[in-house]
């Protein structure tokens, strides 16, 4: 039994065997893929990625009703929870967001570099195809590690407008990427 599961099983001892079973299934089913996914956003920092996965699983355990969702929805939720944990961790670790640092040209020289660069160009093209309003809110929130409220202040528009534009912008981006075959 992995340490996370053992820890959780201990907590659950006096509660619900069914819940314990759900956590075990959850970890077996999603633990590995989640760790691989999270490592990409922790800059391949394995220790940090493992901590993020553990915290994600603990949160899932706290919201055990959500574990009764269908697997693809659980997966989407776990990805989202894990991403937020990484973002919060990055904010705590550094005053300056990582992506503001100049990109390393060497990054493109790793074995899968050309494929990754190609995929990145597809995403960049899709982003350029969006309306200025949609592209702007995606840049000023996610790509610069800012919250809706922070971006709203910078852009001088109400937070509700940022949130709304972000919604329609992301929907448009998803359609573009799906057409180009790089997003499901």
């Amino acid at each position, binding site marked *: 039994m992995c340490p996370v599961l053992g820890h959780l099983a201990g907590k659950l001892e006096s509660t619900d065997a069914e819940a314990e079973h759900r956590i075990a299934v959850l970890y077996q089913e999603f633990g590995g893929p989640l760790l691989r*996914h999270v490592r*990409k*956003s922790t800059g391949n920092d394995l220790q940090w990625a493992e901590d993020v996965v553990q915290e994600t699983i603990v949160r899932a355990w706290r*919201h055990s*009703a*959500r574990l009764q*969702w269908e697997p*693809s*929805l659980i*997966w*989407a*939720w776990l*990805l*989202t929870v894990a*991403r*937020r944990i990484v*973002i919060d961790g990055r904010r705590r670790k550094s005053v300056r967001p990582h*992506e503001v640092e*100049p*990109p390393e*040209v060497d*990054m*493109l020289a790793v074995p899968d*570099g050309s494929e*990754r*660069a190609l*995929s*990145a*160009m597809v*995403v*960049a093209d899709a*982003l*350029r195809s969006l309306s*200025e309003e949609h*592209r702007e809110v*995606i*840049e000023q*929130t*996610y*790509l610069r590690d*800012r*919250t*809706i*409220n922070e*971006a709203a202040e910078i852009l001088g528009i109400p937070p509700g407008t940022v*949130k*709304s534009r*972000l*919604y329609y*912008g*992301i*929907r448009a*981006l*998803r359609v573009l*990427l799906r057409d180009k075959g*790089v*997003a*499901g």
Partner: protein
Amino acid sequence: MHEGVAAYVLGVLDEEELEEFERHLDTCARCQAELQDMAEIPSRLDELKHLPSAAEDDPPMSMSR
């Protein structure tokens, strides 16, 4: 409330709004479906960080105002 799903997926909601949206998500089939549709988008956007030209050469992609 439904429009918050994109901000939720991207992790850009404040803590308070995040909790509020998750409570909404528990009972909203539409947002659950959109969460699934959008869940991989942030990873795609992360790829831009490996593309120097996207961040530097194109004014609309950077701090242009």
